[in-house]
């Protein structure tokens, strides 16, 4: 019977290691904060150039949102960057260990492998909060100050949205164990997620069959609800059903994701594929 302290010690160690690795390359961290601003500015520049004098009016009517377009897009690109970072960190964490040659040592260590994934996931909460502050809070306070109270709710929605995201991350990690090519897979999936989740637009403009796919991706709900929370808390109350869907995803996705990961891991242990890449 292991005590709570014995469980928390490895978790703490993994968490600290992840945070150190993350901040070891400050250039890359800074870049994570710059990308959403750049992408948003690019879309605004392109939109204004093709939309002409009525560009902002067109945008409001096409998206059905009264938010400042820059804020609308920053919420989308901010959540997208956060999800990209999380899915890639969890999905490729095993490959990183393989490349560093520490994977077998970790598997021989007398700790639960689940803690490895949870420790990695926990460290993501820190960077997610920092990105939320640097990208979304900053743009709302600057361009849409009336939406400031909604930021607390928006942060809550983002935190709930992290749970199903971790579940998807576990699926990615399992697929990496099985198919060996993490970055090609995560890159393709992350860009596809941006298309289906309405990063730069409202998902209602997508064809009906794509909207079915969108509905299954948690970031779609996170982006929509965060926009509503900043626009008006009343609008979010009207869409409270989507938060229940997100909560359900938060329970189901990690469970399914981890089950799938365990299945791939078991198979890899039997075939000896675990350390091959």
């Amino acid at each position, binding site marked *: 019977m292991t005590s709570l302290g014995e469980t928390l010690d490895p978790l703490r160690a993994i968490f600290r290691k992840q945070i150190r690795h993350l901040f070891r*390359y400050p*250039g*890359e961290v800074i*870049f994570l904060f710059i990308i959403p601003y*750049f992408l948003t*500015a*690019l*879309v605004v*520049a*392109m*939109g*204004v*150039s*093709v*939309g*002409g004098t*009525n*560009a902002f009016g*067109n*945008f409001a*009517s*096409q*998206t059905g949102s009264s938010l400042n377009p820059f804020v609308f*897009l920053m919420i989308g690109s901010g959540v997208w960057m956060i999800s990209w970072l999380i899915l890639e960190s969890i999905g490729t964490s095993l490959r990183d260990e393989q490349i560093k040659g520490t994977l077998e040592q970790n598997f021989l260590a007398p700790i639960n492998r689940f803690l490895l994934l949870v420790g990695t996931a926990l460290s993501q909460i820190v960077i997610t909060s920092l990105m939320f502050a640097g990208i979304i809070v900053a743009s709302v306070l600057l361009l849409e100050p009336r939406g400031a109270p909604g930021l607390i709710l928006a942060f809550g929605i983002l935190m709930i949205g992290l749970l199903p995201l971790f579940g998807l991350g576990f699926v990615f990690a399992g697929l990496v164990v099985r*198919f060996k*090519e993490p970055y*090609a*897979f995560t*890159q*393709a999936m992350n*860009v*596809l997620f*941006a*298309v289906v989740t309405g*990063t*730069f*637009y*409202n998902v209602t*403009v*997508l064809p009906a069959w794509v909207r079915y796919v969108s509905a299954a991706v948690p970031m779609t709900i996170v982006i929509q609800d965060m926009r509503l929370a900043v626009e008006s808390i009343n609008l979010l109350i009207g869409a409270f059903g989507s938060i229940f869907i997100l909560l359900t995803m938060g329970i189901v996705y990690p469970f399914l994701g981890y089950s799938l990961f365990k299945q791939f891991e078991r198979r890899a242990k039997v075939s000896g594929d675990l350390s091959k890449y």
Partner: protein
Amino acid sequence: MGRIFGEVKAAFVKDFRIYFRYPSWIASEFVTLPAWFLLFAIGVASWVPKGQVTTTLGSSTIFNFFYWGFIFLIVFSTSIWGIGQYIRTEQLQGTIEQLFLAPISRVTIILGRFARTFLTDMAIIAYTAILLGFLSRERVAVENPLGLALVFAFLELAVLGFGLIFAAVTFRVKSFNFLANLTQFAVIGLCGVFFPLSILPDPVRTVSLAIPFTYLADLMRYTAAGQAAGTTTILDPTLEFSIAAVLSIAIFVVGLAYFKATEKSAQRRGSIGTH
């Protein structure tokens, strides 16, 4: 001459083999690139009333306007991720010292890699045109095929030269990814790849006009979408063609000279394999 051709061919075959060794990367490329296009095209379409064409685009559709900017970006990216990354890849694989000891020119190896990226770029461009045409029911129109071919030739020359400069810079800087992303973003933001330069403020536009790739992006859209589609050039078309030709040759010559000089300096300093 025969020897150089043999070296380029060997480098080309090697690079092709490596490329096909990772089918997942090929699949990812063929999924990711059209997805990027869709993401931005749908995003920008939200700024235009449904079914309407704005005065900025003349009679050209959003699809054609962005398609050519997108093609420019694919080809430009080759200079960074294809040619520029060559030195860093060899450093990471631990084969850079062997290559320097081999009695061949590093430039011919880069040319082999360039030939491979040129072919794969063409495949991706053709595939993207067909796929996006199918998805959006739009056809890719080319108004002036000869002019477009000429612009493509200038662009490829400039890309090769800029790639050589980037490969040389890799000997000196350690944060390759950071620099590569920054350069790509700068070109997208400053060269009018996806929007006309007229929307940029004056001082920024002056910087844009000093970048050779601005004229190549502009001419590509002009020759492809055409004057009839409402696309105009920054300068008089004949003058702009001449400027683009001179600048492309200049970038290539500077790139070649800079790469050779940096290579020699790295050999002297003993920093060939350092990264």
